[in-house]
């Protein structure tokens, strides 16, 4: 009997996996010899929708499977076992030999956090336990003492994956050491960094791993209740978490007297309401309590006074997903991956101008180059590598000459960027670095909660300055002015949002000052990106008057009938570039 798995995470669904699934369901409706099921994200977002066939110990993953290809898979592969080589992205035969066009993408990774993503049906607790799920909970609750659990996590050297890289075991020991009638475990699933989706994929693909991490933490620090604070923009993650929590309660992994250990623990989901600053832990606590999500002064630290003023341990989704693996396999197995000071693996979201956009989990210390070129397949459409942006609105741009930098908590900060949560946005020559800085300041300015004056007003002034530069109105003092404001905002803000908001500006000035100067002095955008400084025009010598661009223009800005030269109305043009792609004669140019 063959098992057919359709990747049904948000990436898969936005590529049309729902239609693929429905088509397969229809085709297999009166065929009970095959089992159709869904699975999470295997990370090859660039080939979604993905369909895997498991049969007699073999695995075949097909990419770009629309309804038509689904029919072909049923007719050929399922009917007579013929593998359709053209779009088999990954294969594994019964003896374990691997092949397929995208085999290197998967085999260059080490999957600890993503161990079950794309492998099990996330809505089935049985599939999770069949792969060893809840064994860690059993050990932590019935065999180990809380001190042993904390000791094992300390020993593993696991550092928080939410951005700051604080050692998790030490954090747990703080909360464990504070006595109180009630303590809380919080899971930060706010994933606000635009350009990152590791946490979403884990929640959608392997929710029980996160629940287990939280239960084990509860035991270790002496808490009986946990909150998962998940952003509202992730409806599917919330739905899968709800299913998982319900199933865990039914099986007795949540609730009273778990596995007869005498330990009680339950979990509640709190849905965010759309505020980036709520990813900052003290703001997150305020939001859980029903307040505006504004950061609070530390100390007191969460381990003393967190949610509802009680000792609280907060970790990121990926941090928790590591915990069960460490408990089962041991700290020393974990330390086999990564570096001395940053042990283990890290999941990265490879996005932007990259050939193979998706998720990749690699040992800490892997270089940017290995990630972008080795796994990610290099720059999209053979473009030219510019920098990678890491750490989102708090991070910075790492230029090409630093592409050998190992990605870990020691080396990335030396470049001016930060590790952040693992979003790696690859930029190419068509990306304007001043515009990228403006983009992030636009973001932080909008998301500043307003508590600290320097953050609230300072980011606004920085944004205005950047807007002037990108529209050709900048003046020569602007760069120094930006640097001056940046220092003040960093020093006078209470939380990480303000303290890091200027980073994107500072790193782009450091590495790409010439682009700032070109905008300011020459009123020129070297990447031909800033719309106020570029226009679209049609070369009279090349235009044949075919009317293709006239018809394709979404805002009817191009005039001219058949065999007449076409002209773009600059007042109407929204500079979308559609005419460039539709012209068959290279007649449209950007200047």
């Amino acid at each position, binding site marked *: 009997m063959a098992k057919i798995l359709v990747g049904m995470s*948000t*990436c898969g*669904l*936005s*590529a049309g996996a729902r239609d693929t699934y429905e088509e397969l369901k229809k085709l297999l409706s009166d065929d009970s010899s095959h089992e159709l099921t869904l699975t999470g994200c295997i990370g090859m*977002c*660039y080939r*979604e929708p993905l369909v895997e066939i498991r049969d007699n110990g073999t695995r075949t993953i097909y990419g770009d499977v629309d309804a038509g290809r689904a029919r072909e898979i049923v007719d050929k592969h399922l009917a007579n076992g013929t593998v359709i080589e053209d779009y088999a992205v990954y294969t594994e035969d019964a003896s374990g030999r691997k092949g397929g066009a995208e085999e290197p993408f998967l085999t260059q990774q080490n999957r600890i956090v993503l161990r079950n993503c794309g492998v099990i049906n996330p809505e089935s607790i049985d599939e999770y336990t069949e792969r060893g799920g809840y064994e860690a909970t059993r050990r932590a609750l019935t065999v180990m003492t809380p001190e042993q659990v904390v000791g094992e996590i300390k020993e593993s050297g696991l550092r928080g994956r939410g951005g700051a890289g604080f050692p998790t075991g030490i954090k747990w020991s703080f909360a464990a050491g504070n006595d109180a009638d009630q303590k809380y475990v919080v899971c930060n699933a706010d*994933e*606000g*960094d*635009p*350009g*990152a*989706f590791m946490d*979403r994929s884990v929640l959608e693909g392997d929710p029980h791993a996160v629940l287990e991490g939280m239960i084990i933490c509860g035991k270790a620090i002496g808490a009986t209740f946990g909150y998962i604070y998940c952003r*509202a*923009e992730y*409806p599917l993650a919330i739905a899968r978490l709800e299913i998982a929590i319900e199933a865990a309660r039914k099986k007795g992994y949540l609730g009273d007297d778990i596995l007869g250990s005498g330990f009680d623990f339950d979990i509640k989901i709190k*849905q*965010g*309401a*759309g*505020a*980036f600053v709520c990813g900052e832990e003290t703001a997150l606590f305020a*939001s859980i*309590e*029903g*307040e*505006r*999500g504004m950061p609070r002064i530390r100390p007191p630290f969460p381990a003393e006074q967190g949610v509802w003023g009680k000792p609280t341990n907060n970790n990121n989704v990926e941090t928790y997903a590591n915990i069960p693996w460490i408990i089962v396999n041991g700290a020393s197995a974990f330390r086999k991956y990564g570096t001395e000071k940053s042990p283990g693996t890290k999941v990265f*979201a*490879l*996005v*932007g*101008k990259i050939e193979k*956009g*998706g*998720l990749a989990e690699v040992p800490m210390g892997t270089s940017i180059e290995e990630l972008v070129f080795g796994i990610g397949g290099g720059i999209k459409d053979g473009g030219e590598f510019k920098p990678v942006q890491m750490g*989102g609105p708090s991070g910075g741009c790492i230029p090409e000459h630093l592409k050998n930098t190992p990605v870990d908590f020691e080396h990335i900060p030396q470049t001016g960027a930060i590790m952040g949560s693992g*979003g790696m*946005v690859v*930029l190419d020559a068509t*990306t304007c670095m001043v515009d*990228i800085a403006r*983009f*992030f300041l636009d973001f932080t300015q909008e*998301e500043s*909660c307003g508590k600290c004056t320097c953050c609230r007003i300072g980011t606004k002034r920085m944004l205005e300055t950047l807007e002037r530069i990108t529209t050709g109105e900048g003046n020569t003092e602007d760069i120094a002015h930006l640097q001056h404001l940046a220092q003040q905002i960093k020093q006078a803000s209470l939380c990480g949002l303000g303290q890091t908001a200027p980073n994107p500006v500072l790193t782009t000035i450091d590495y790409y000052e010439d682009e700032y100067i070109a905008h300011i002095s020459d009123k020129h955008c070297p990447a031909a990106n800033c719309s106020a400084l570029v226009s679209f025009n049609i070369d009279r010598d090349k235009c044949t008057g075919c009317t293709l661009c006239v018809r*394709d*223009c*979404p*805002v009817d800005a191009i005039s001219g009938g058949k065999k007449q030269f076409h002209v773009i109305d600059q007042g*109407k043009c*929204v*500079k*979308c*570039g*559609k005419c460039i*792609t539709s012209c068959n004669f290279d007649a449209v140019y950007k200047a």
Partner: protein
Amino acid sequence: MSKRCIDPAKAREIAERYPAGDGTGLIHALQDVQAAFGYVPCEAVEVLCEHLGVPISKAFSATTFYKAFSLTPKGDVVIRICTGTACHIRGAQTLVDEIRAVLSIEPGETTEDMKFTLETVNCVGACAMAPVVSLNGEYHGGVQPGAATRMIRGEE
């Protein structure tokens, strides 16, 4: 503010899902109201605050802080263009400009006939499929200029 009437019984039903006199349920209750009506109507806020025993100012403090809440009604089709980093560098802004031009509304606004609302969203987490546009919660990846217009014309 809208002149649309809301069903007060529905607002009351939502309020009563939460314990009376306990203000900590406020944000959750407001989320339920937003989901049920597509926005947070003033009348519903009054019902909610009375039941939870919190001042109305607190409800407005929350609704104006969190982006998930809207105090004005939305159109039948809510177009959300993701403007996260990956979508930004793959042309999200041109999609926003295009829809703005086609519908003559700014992000956050609704067409006069109440058919379309245009919104931008920080990141929906489908970065590898950038640029992403969602229509009433259904995601579309790799949206090209022109395709966004066709998508909304298909809805007309």
